[in-house]
């Protein structure tokens, strides 16, 4: 099975294949706390991307030699389901997945007060159920929410978004087709409160000026993502608070 490559990815009115404007993000849907067993979990749909993240911990670390004397060890596994892409992907971790696990871990670690839990493990699992470009960013976004849902003390939420260059134009949030046919793709993760870029990668070719524009465009995307992250957390926890409030009221009425 192979998909036919379209001739033009951006039309004369600067509209992309999926109807988006150049600096427009794909529709995002986020849910927090959707898995029963995990200490924290979240799910994101960004365009056709569908990604689950779950956090276990802080918990006892195995094997013990991985324990760190002064902080928790954040361990991260980014993994793609065999059915998540056009050609079946072997479930064994690829070199790409191992690299992404590393950069995602390094992007999230600055946001966590790992020093509160020495000698423990915080295990983070990202499962890409369906992939359509930008999975490391969407995975990071949803992983940060899973950490928050697990109640782990954090400095900030980490939101991630890619920007790049397609057919000579700078665009936000590339799809798989745009990434493959385009000239450059730059994933970026950002903590807005500390003005900190915690993940930055790029492949492709950009001049120095384009590079600055793409960074700024990705930062804008990250800020939008951050808003959506906050709304998703509120949607769960404001709901929980209201339910708790109702229970208390009912309890008081019963006591009367």
């Amino acid at each position: 099975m192979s998909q036919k490559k379209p001739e033009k990815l951006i039309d004369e009115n600067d509209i992309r294949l999926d109807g988006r404007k150049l600096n427009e993000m794909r529709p995002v849907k986020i849910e927090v706390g959707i898995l029963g067993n995990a200490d924290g979990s979240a799910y994101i749909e960004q365009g056709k991307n569908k990604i689950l993240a779950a956090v276990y911990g802080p918990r006892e670390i195995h094997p013990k030699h991985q324990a760190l004397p002064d902080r928790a060890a954040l361990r991260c596994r980014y993994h793609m389901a065999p059915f998540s892409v056009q050609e079946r992907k072997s479930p064994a971790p690829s070199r790409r997945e191992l690299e992404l696990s590393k950069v995602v871990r390094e992007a999230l670690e600055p946001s966590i007060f790992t020093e509160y839990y020495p000698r423990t493990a915080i295990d983070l699992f990202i499962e890409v159920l369906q992939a359509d470009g930008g999975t490391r960013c969407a995975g990071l976004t949803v992983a940060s929410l899973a950490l928050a849902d697990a109640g782990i003390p954090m400095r900030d939420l980490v939101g991630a978004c890619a920007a790049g260059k397609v057919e000579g134009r700078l665009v936000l949030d590339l799809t798989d087709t745009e990434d493959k046919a385009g000239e450059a793709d730059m994933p970026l993760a950002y903590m807005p409160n500390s003005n900190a870029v915690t993940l930055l990668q790029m492949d492709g070719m950009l001049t120095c000026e384009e590079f600055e524009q793409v960074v700024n465009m990705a930062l804008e995307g990250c800020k939008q993502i951050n808003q959506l992250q906050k709304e998703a957390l509120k949607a769960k926890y404001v709901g929980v608070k209201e339910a708790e409030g109702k229970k208390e009221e009912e309890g008081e009425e019963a006591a009367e």
Partner: protein
Amino acid sequence: MSSIMAAKVRQRRIAQLIARGKRLDGRESTEYREIQIEFGLIERAEGSARVRLGKTEVLVGTKIELGEPFPDVPNEGVLTVNAELVPLASPTFEAGPPDENSIELARVVDRGIRESKAIALEDLCVEPGKKVFIVFVDVYVLNHDGNLIDASALAALAALTNTKMFNYEVKEDEIKIKPGYKPLPIRNFPIAVTFAKINDKLIVDPWLDEEQVMDARLTMAVENDGKICAIQKGGYGYFTAQQIFEASKIAQQKAVELRKLVVKD
């Protein structure tokens, strides 16, 4: 190996000095260690080079074999980069399957070469969809004293410029290797420039002790025309957007400087 206490004291000294704009080994913040490149040390390899970056030492050998192309690019040869953190190079390296550090190293070196289109891969096609040449770039770290990425990228580029291609002819669907060689078609020379952030300041080419105190690492690969062709952030810290822009400008200057060591015009 010196004691852990001595190392801790030295690391604190490094961090304090960098806060004042100085480095323990007396270098400027944007100054590389001494670089030596030797070409073609391994006769059995199609190409090879050894880079010494201060005490860091990396050997790269290239091999070329016939193989199948990837189905999505049937008309192009294949580039494969692999990195081995050989146990003899550092007390912290262990034998075994590649860990995430060696995979990251290989993939960052690969990204610079691939994205800058350094090798004319379409010239390596023998029979579209069936037979192409595969270029294996094997990075062998011999001594680890920091900044393996820049040393490896430089050694890989030097080895590629030194790589010989077979002469061949296709006769009745048979590929015949003919005597003699020609150089591998190289048309771009990507240079990796790596920064460490220590005490909120950027330095280039961190040596091992500096890597041990750095908050974060940033690598930018720059091609011939000064375009940025690959980026990788590493480490548990972060960068501000201003620091990233500053790094991109320094990387462009440094790339011109380093490229002269490989490309003699």
